[in-house]
């Protein structure tokens, strides 16, 4: 089960709204390599894992990814506060706005809604852990891409934190996979 803790894993304090950035960063919530998919992937794969070390790793990383989904949602919320219709149109957020207003809706930057088709749970430890290693790298690349396109220091500070976590998760999943052959 879960208990909510009323804080973010890392603080999100964005001064300037930015429709364009919001329309891109939504990918890190609901895109194919986003945080919602990460949490869903790990928390479902763990049921059939053969070793306590691997179940623990998937449980704790999956749990952390839920916190990251909350952080990305916070970024979107803060970037879309008090936007004018002109800013929404100029920032290319108009297509999103028509369906969702300033609500936080998990979708890719392309507008494709979040889909569990982007994740896998095969009931096979080697297959699942290899997927997890790739998923962490793909999430890291998405954050790298965001950092190339964003010049907002408040946003980039948080994105760098999230990017760094993917590297740590990759490391832990590698160790979890090696424990299969111990």
């Amino acid at each position: 089960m879960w208990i909510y803790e009323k804080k973010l894993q890392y603080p999100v304090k964005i001064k300037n709204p930015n429709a364009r950035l919001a329309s891109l960063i939504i990918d890190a919530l609901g895109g194919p390599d986003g945080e919602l998919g990460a949490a869903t992937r790990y928390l479902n794969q763990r049921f059939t894992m053969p070793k306590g070390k691997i179940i623990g790793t998937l449980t704790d990383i999956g749990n952390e990814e839920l916190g990251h989904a909350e952080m990305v949602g916070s970024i979107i919320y803060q970037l879309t506060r008090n936007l004018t219709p002109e800013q929404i149109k100029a920032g290319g957020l108009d297509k999103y706005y028509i369906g969702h207003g300033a609500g936080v809706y998990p979708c890719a930057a392309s507008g494709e809604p979040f889909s569990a088709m982007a994740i896998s749970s095969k009931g096979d430890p080697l297959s699942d852990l290899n997927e997890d290693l790739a998923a962490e790298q793909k999430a890291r690349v998405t954050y790298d891409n965001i950092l190339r396109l964003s010049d907002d220091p408040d946003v980039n500070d948080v994105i760098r934190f999230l990017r760094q976590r993917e590297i740590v998760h990759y490391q832990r999943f590698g160790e979890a996979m090696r424990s299969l052959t111990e």
Partner: protein
Amino acid sequence: MNRDELMNRIHALSFAMTEAQLFLDTHPECRDALTYFREKRDELDNAMTEYQNKYGPLFADMTVGDKWSWVDGPWPWQSGGKED
């Protein structure tokens, strides 16, 4: 410590625990990591108690006083912004 300083300390300690916890998941026999985790947990316990007594609950069941302050803001995403 004021509210922001105390929350920064909670963020730091709780992050240290998360890191140690993930490491321990794949290194459960590491005594150094276990000691580190417990030290941080004790420091975090103290910081959390101080914060929740002064500024409101971080967990619903830590609500103190004669009012259900769990629903009082700010919620974690309601900071930053020009109006703050």
